[in-house]
């Protein structure tokens, strides 16, 4: 293992040099007293710094960059408030297993623990929401520390890693070693796939008469799209996904049923209780996906494939689990299947049943019954008509996100970027910026709620100044719509703290930032504005006023089982 030395350089220069060695081209952040040396070194580095308006947004940008590319996104903040502002963004990345390296400045070592100006124990604050944290205590430790951060953030089950660097360490001038590669003792992100388990899985899959396959975020993380699709097609087994796994299988494919969960597709929520075998890949059986754990898919045998062994039997007892990288495991499972069977026929009782349920569900109120010209489902479908397949869609959190879950079709890998584990309002716009930086050649659209948008709207300043042409669509119901829905359905229409007034005027707000902006009142206008928006080389905002009374269905109420999914507005209260 080679080690190169750079002579007489500062710790801050070592930070930047290590980033270059890790092929980092962009960092998102904000400077301050404790990271000034790093910012000074950045200036001569060739690395582009994108100035956020709030460190939370910088973290979301880095997170989305990571989700789109699979490489760690980098964000930076100063000590104290800079670091604490990163917290929501880092927790969001942690909850969705997204690779991020966060670099914070820290007060000089000699001031540590003395309540120095802008001192926060950021490692203490972030330990529960990071995969690891590293604090180099001398400049010599910087390259190996940062390389470890990248390795840990991107390997196994990815996650954010914090590197907290005291200012005096950034300023030390030394001969600094740059190891070619690093090792983290005791950390084994990859294991040999158990060949016997693979054979058993193949046996179970071949025997199953009503197999169903479930894809989660792990498919994206390990780029397992191809073997995932191959296994499904070989078995002719239909596919459901989690919300994070949406798009792990092309959503236009005849075998794709779509997401399950609190606002999953009705077909998926129904059929998961009818299969006799569920093979779940890269999922964690979160309560938002499964409803009551004990009722979920209890009639079936379950195979669980995941990189993280602590997920096995955590929420759901399974019959067989296989630890490993989804891509590797699925490739082996495919080979084991291909030795046993050839491509199954597309006519059998299970597929007939699937077709029947699909037909029945076509007419549920959730899919057909919305009165207004601009209702969520219609907007989302219009959007799919207008936007090319490779478009990356990001979202805020709320009803608008759930309309996408149900009605948006993800056609290409890594084009669906949304906060599911933490459900962080304010994710959409900065995530769109991070995604556009990663993929400047594809359209990037933030489909947002007014409440979510307002949380990080100042990122428009970043988009305009840095010339990052994204489009934000604001589904503007002047309300925290999702919460309003819960209050309507579960709190007897007692609306508490959910209604906004008329402030702000989003068109004027966007224009004040220098973005182009339109308010639309018909679907046709919306379609036109969107087409125009993605053709611009500057950011655009489309304000879409909607009624706050159109709720999102299907809906599996919290604390209920997936069999109690409600498929239409409460006047119908139609359950399966």
């Amino acid at each position, binding site marked *: 293992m080679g080690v190169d030395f750079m002579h007489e350089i500062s710790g801050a220069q070592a930070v930047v040099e290590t980033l270059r060695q890790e092929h980092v081209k962009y960092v998102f952040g904000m400077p301050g007293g404790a990271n000034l040396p790093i910012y000074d070194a950045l200036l001569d580095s060739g690395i582009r710094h994108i100035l956020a308006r709030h460190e939370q947004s910088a973290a979301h940008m880095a997170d989305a960059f990571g989700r789109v590319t699979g490489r760690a996104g980098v964000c930076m903040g100063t000590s104290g408030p800079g670091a604490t502002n990163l917290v929501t963004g880092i927790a969001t990345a942690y909850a969705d297993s997204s690779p991020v390296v966060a670099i914070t400045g820290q007060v000089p070592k000699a001031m540590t623990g003395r309540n120095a100006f802008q001192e926060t124990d950021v490692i203490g604050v972030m330990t*529960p929401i990071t995969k690891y944290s590293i604090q180099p205590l001398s400049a010599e430790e910087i390259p190996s520390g940062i390389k470890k951060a990248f390795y*840990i953030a991107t390997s196994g089950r990815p996650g954010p890693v914090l590197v907290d660097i005291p200012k005096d360490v950034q300023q030390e001038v030394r001969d600094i070693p740059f190891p070619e590669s690093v090792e983290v003792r005791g950390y084994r992100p990859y294991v040999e796939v158990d060949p016997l388990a693979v054979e058993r899985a193949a046996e179970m899959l071949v025997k199953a008469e009503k197999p169903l396959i479930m894809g989660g975020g792990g498919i994206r993380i390990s780029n397992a799209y191809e073997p995932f699709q191959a296994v499904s097609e070989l078995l002719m087994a239909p596919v459901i996904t989690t919300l994070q796994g949406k798009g792990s299988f092309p959503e236009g494919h005849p075998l794709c049923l779509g997401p399950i969960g609190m606002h999953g597709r009705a077909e998926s929520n129904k059929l998961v209780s009818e299969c006799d075998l569920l093979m779940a890949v890269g999922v964690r059986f979160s309560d938002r996906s499964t409803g009551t754990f004990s009722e979920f898919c209890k009639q079936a045998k379950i195979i669980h494939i995941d990189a993280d*062994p602590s997920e096995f039997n955590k929420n759901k007892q399974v019959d067989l689990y296989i630890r490993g990288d989804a891509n590797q495991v699925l490739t082996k499972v495919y080979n084991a299947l291909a030795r046993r069977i050839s491509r199954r026929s597309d006519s059998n009782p299970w597929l007939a049943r699937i077709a029947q349920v699909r037909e029945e569900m076509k007419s549920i109120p959730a899919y057909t019954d919305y009165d207004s010209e601009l209702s969520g489902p219609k907007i989302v479908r219009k959007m799919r008509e207008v936007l090319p397949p490779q478009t990356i869609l990001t979202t805020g959190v709320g009803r608008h996100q759930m309309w996408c879950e149900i009605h948006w079709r993800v056609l290409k890998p890594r084009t669906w970027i949304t906060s599911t584990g933490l459900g962080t309002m304010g994710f959409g716009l900065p995530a769109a910026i991070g995604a556009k930086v990663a993929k400047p050649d594809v359209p990037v659209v933030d489909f947002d709620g007014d409440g979510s948008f307002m949380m990080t709207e100042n990122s428009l300043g970043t988009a305009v100044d840095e010339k990052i042409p994204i489009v934000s669509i604001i589904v503007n119901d002047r309300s925290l719509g999702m919460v309003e829905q819960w209050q309507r359905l579960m709190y007897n229409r007692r609306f508490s703290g959910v209604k906004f007034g008329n402030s702000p005027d989003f068109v004027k707000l966007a224009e004040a930032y220098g973005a182009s902006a339109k308010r639309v009142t018909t679907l046709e206008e919306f379609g036109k504005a969107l087409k125009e928006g993605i053709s611009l080389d500057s950011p655009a905002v489309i304000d879409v006023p909607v009624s706050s009374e159109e709720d999102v269905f299907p809906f599996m109420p919290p604390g209920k089982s997936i069999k109690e999914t409600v498929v239409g507005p409460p006047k119908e209260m139609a359950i399966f």
Partner: protein
Amino acid sequence: MTALKILSVLVENKPGTLFRVTHMIRLMRLNIEGLTCGVTNGGDRSRITMTVNGDDATLDFLAKQLSKVIDVYEAQTYSPEEVTARELALIKLNLSSVSHLDDRRLQGARIVETSDRSITIEVIGSPAEIDRFIHRFDSTQILELARTGTTAVPKG
């Protein structure tokens, strides 16, 4: 059903590791009844041994979560019967309460310090033996008491 369990965690011997480990235990809302920590052979690793009260499922899950912590090599839970466990107690007794140094209640202990008003003894044994030893005295006779908490290795 909750019961006392021994949690044995082999970790990297460096700053912050104990914090990462105890954070997970706090997250699972468990109380640490006893905790010992010391370097193991080689010196660059430490073994943390904790006694916690919890149900099997919670502790299994905790061990899996701990195994995931980057600086943790391995984490295992054991029931008390599965390990050889030892604990040390230092007990400072009011001298007036032990009339003579061959008091039968001192049997099994080692006298490690005496002064004109107190006598400090050391007892080593399984946690239950230590409990029983302490019960030989009433609380007015004990001036101070310190127990190390259990350290343990699996049997066999």
